[in-house]
């Protein structure tokens, strides 16, 4: 769905830190939302923790830099990083151009999806959250 100026795909889960989660069996692909990339604007550097790192839901999992700012990336789920998007090292602008596709950040082997899901938002809930903060 599209809310205000922001794309919010239906089948994903979202965090209030503006990360998205796509569940694929025991793994999840994560990234930042369209809202996040539009707020950050002109992303020039992305850094995600190494493959094999254990991450905790809502703890730092990396850093994203725009021309003017440095922001933490927060893990939307707990688990172990199994893959990171290597293309982002050369082309961090993929986060701006295609936040739900080529701009994915990492693949995570899930530790406890059921527990994590309780603290994530559905697309509908995230859309309401965006409307709230934009008003």
């Amino acid at each position, binding site marked *: 769905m599209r809310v205000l100026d922001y794309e919010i795909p239906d089948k994903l889960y979202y965090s209030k830190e503006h990360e998205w989660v796509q569940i694929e069996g025991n793994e999840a692909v994560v990234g930042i939302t369209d809202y996040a990339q539009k707020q950050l*604007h002109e992303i020039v550097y992305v850094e995600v923790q190494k493959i094999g790192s254990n991450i905790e839901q809502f703890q730092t999992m990396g850093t994203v830099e725009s021309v*003017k700012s440095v922001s933490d990336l927060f893990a939307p789920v707990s688990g172990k990083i199994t893959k990171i998007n290597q293309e982002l090292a050369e082309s961090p602008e993929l986060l701006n151009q295609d936040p739900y596709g080529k701009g994915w950040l990492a693949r995570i082997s899930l530790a406890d999806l059921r527990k994590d899901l309780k603290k994530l938002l559905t697309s509908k809930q995230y859309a309401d959250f965006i409307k709230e903060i934009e008003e």
Partner: protein
Amino acid sequence: MGKQLKKTHLHEFHKKTAKMTEFAGFEMPLWYRGIIPEHMAVRNTVGIFDITHMGRALITGAKSEAFLNYVTTNDVTALSPLSAHYSNICNEQGGIKDDFVLSRLEQEKFLIVYNAANRTKDYEWLVKHATPFNVKVEDVSDNIAMFAVQGPNAQKTLQKIADLDLSKIERFKCGWTKLIGVECFVSRTGYTGEDGFEVFVWNTPLTNPANAVKVWNAILEAGRELGIEPCGLGARDTLRLEAGMCLYGNDIDETTTPLEAGLGFVVKLKKDSFIGKEALTKQKVEGIKRKRVGLTMMKKGPSPRPNYEVWKGNEKIGHITSGTFSPILERGIAMAYVSVQHATEGNILTVKIRDKLAEAQIVKFPFYDPTKYGHARLK
């Protein structure tokens, strides 16, 4: 939120077209299309900035030259009418109270343009020291709109709407011209490293912004086929940093001296008494302990940012005061203060970026190749 931010004459335009930000009590455009395209427009074609937030004061009187020689560090006697120079105001300890551009309008009339954040401080300092000289200091900030038109196509753009031959105004010279019929003062100065002008739309109070809006729109229209972009404070900062110019409050403040900041060229110690002279003379004789340097990251990667530590081997030798991603070099650049024994061009240092150390090399300003970019580029 809550507190009332000041607005410029162009507020309606900015609000409709830009991402806005708070700066020095003003609501200002941060970017319109984006920092990078705006930055590149100024380097390659032309950009226009609303810089009405800056402070402006007129100084008039028979002894205005003597007064300015006393309160500022540069040689005001050497400044001929319709010329401008960069200068500093220092405190008694030689610390920089502000940096600014001073224009001599007439033999006994000057225009000083200082930082937005220092508007009140500077005005009060000038007024306080003006009494013995019997000069008038008049804050005209709210009666003059100010735009910067910067980039290799700046002159071509402005010439389309100017009645004065702008090619006659050399760098750091000024003149009066009508722009689209509106009386303006223009100086060939700027804060980007590029050729360009700063345009002062005279007698345009904030309460009656029509002439300022008219000139702004006419410049945008004139520059359309020359690649003009309206530019915000984001690009203003990346441009000045690439050019190696200081930002007050980051790279210089009352605890840094012009000698440490590499601004010795605006301190004329041979002048008669001026505020800060004794302290600066002493520092010149004894030598400085730290120095402002430019750092370019050796590799693409994270950018250095203010307050990051700078190391040489196992020794912490300084810290970053400004840092950003450079759109021209496509990597991080920074200004830092480091111990003078390490402040040698070519020296490789490390910057602590979060938990990692990244190599950076001391380079001379500007950061870009001056034969390709900037006002001295080869045509």
